[in-house]
């Protein structure tokens, strides 16, 4: 009965708008989330493997080279033998872009969480989420995911997904700098974060830096930065120049793979910026370990 009413409501909306509304069926979202999770926890993207191989070839420190070699070997074993790359199969983070022509007669957040539930149970993945920070009772299916929604023009639904490890997340930082601290202040803060984190976040890292916005938005910017392709460059010139300078400086810190020295501390630095208040210079550093697992899927809306 409820379904009939829902469908009726849906059709009325379509008629009222005078145009065809489009949707993405729930079961497609659920199964796609599940498949992406199972796939990404055992397969590193080729671009990340290429960056690791490049780092291996350029590394001069013997122990660092040996560690990079093991990391490269690990991803081969994971893929070929169907074993998760890392035992920390993460907390699922999704950035969802919803086309404005789409309409949903179900809860998209719920559908994503159903996919997470199925992926972690069917994929033999570790359930790492607890219900409350104090009671530490496991939710047993790795839900809920952290989901951010945004609107885009058109008829597509794009979901970017990453199972984010706890070790690198724990070493991430945020600081509200003063405007006069400027670019140098940002650089110092990023370098201090990486140095103090040492081997704990599992370097070599992908370093996501957010600058601007406000307190919560700068963390969002830093998280979004680590979702960018490892081999891209920032569109904004200031951000692009900062990425280059930071990568060079970070790799001179001699932190190295697992904190044991060498020039491979970061594989990439990604900077995302936003306008901010005259009184503020927010900066956030979100660290991604070398097991940089992420995937995305694009659905084209269909007639309901």
């Amino acid at each position, binding site marked *: 009965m409820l379904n009939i009413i829902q469908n009726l409501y849906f059709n009325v909306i379509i008629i009222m708008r005078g145009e065809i509304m489009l949707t993405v069926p729930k079961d497609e979202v659920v199964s796609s989330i599940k498949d992406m999770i199972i796939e990404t926890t055992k397969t590193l993207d080729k671009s990340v493997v290429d960056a690791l191989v490049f780092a291996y070839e350029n590394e001069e420190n013997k122990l660092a080279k040996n560690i990079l070699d093991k990391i490269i070997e690990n991803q081969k074993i994971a893929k070929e033998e169907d074993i998760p790359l890392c035992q920390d199969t993460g907390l699922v983070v999704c950035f969802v872009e919803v086309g404005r022509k789409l309409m949903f007669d179900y809860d998209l957040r719920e559908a994503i969480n159903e996919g997470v539930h199925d992926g972690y149970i069917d994929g033999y993945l570790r359930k790492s989420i607890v219900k409350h920070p104090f009671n530490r009772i496991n939710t047993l299916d790795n839900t809920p995911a952290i989901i951010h929604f945004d609107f885009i023009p058109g008829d597509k639904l794009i979901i970017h997904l990453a199972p984010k490890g706890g070790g690198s997340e724990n070493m991430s930082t945020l600081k509200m700098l003063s405007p006069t601290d400027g670019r140098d202040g940002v650089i110092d803060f990023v370098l201090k974060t990486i140095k103090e984190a040492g081997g704990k976040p599992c370097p070599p890292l992908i370093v996501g830096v957010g600058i601007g916005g406000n307190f919560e938005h700068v963390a969002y910017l830093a998280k979004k930065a680590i979702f960018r392709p490892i081999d891209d460059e920032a569109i904004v010139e200031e951000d692009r120049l900062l990425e280059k300078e930071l990568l060079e400086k970070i790799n001179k810190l001699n932190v190295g793979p697992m904190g044991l020295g060498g020039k491979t501390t970061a594989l990439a630095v990604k900077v995302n910026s936003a306008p901010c208040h005259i009184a503020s210079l927010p900066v956030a550093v979100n660290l991604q*370990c070398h097991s940089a697992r992420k995937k995305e899927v694009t659905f084209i809306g269909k007639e309901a």
Partner: protein
Amino acid sequence: MEKKLNTPISDSVRTSLKVGEEVLINGVIYTARDAAHKLMVEAIKNGEDLPFNFEGQIVYYVGPTPARPNKPIGSCGPTSSYRMDNLSPTLMKHGLKIMIGKGERSNKMISEIKKEKAVYLIAIGGIGALLSKTVISSEVIAYPELGPEAIRKLVVKDFPAIVAIDSIGNSIF
């Protein structure tokens, strides 16, 4: 060339380990991370029995992924050790002398390790698939309610680790 270490490990073998040395562990290792550490420390405070005798044994900070059918274990790399820094000294006083994890430990922990003539080994983080190949068997022996954080008895063959802090307090970091 890596040094072979067979468990249980005697005091003399343990104290002969030097920082930076690469080892291959053979025999039994016990898993325990945050939640299991907390329960063991509480057990000691309450005068209760510990899940296993620490003497000559190794504790590995890991929460593995579930084993697929016919496999002993899933992915099983180390977790960050610093989170155990406040709890390890109590366990060390009760006989635990060898720990495996990843990353730096606090200065206070380094001096405790020196005081107890203990040894801290590190395994490479994020290579849990590769490390799972060294595990022959795995059995939950305590705190099953902790799920991935339960204490497991692993039997390993040539499990690779590096001496990060030796018994005289030298640190690789």
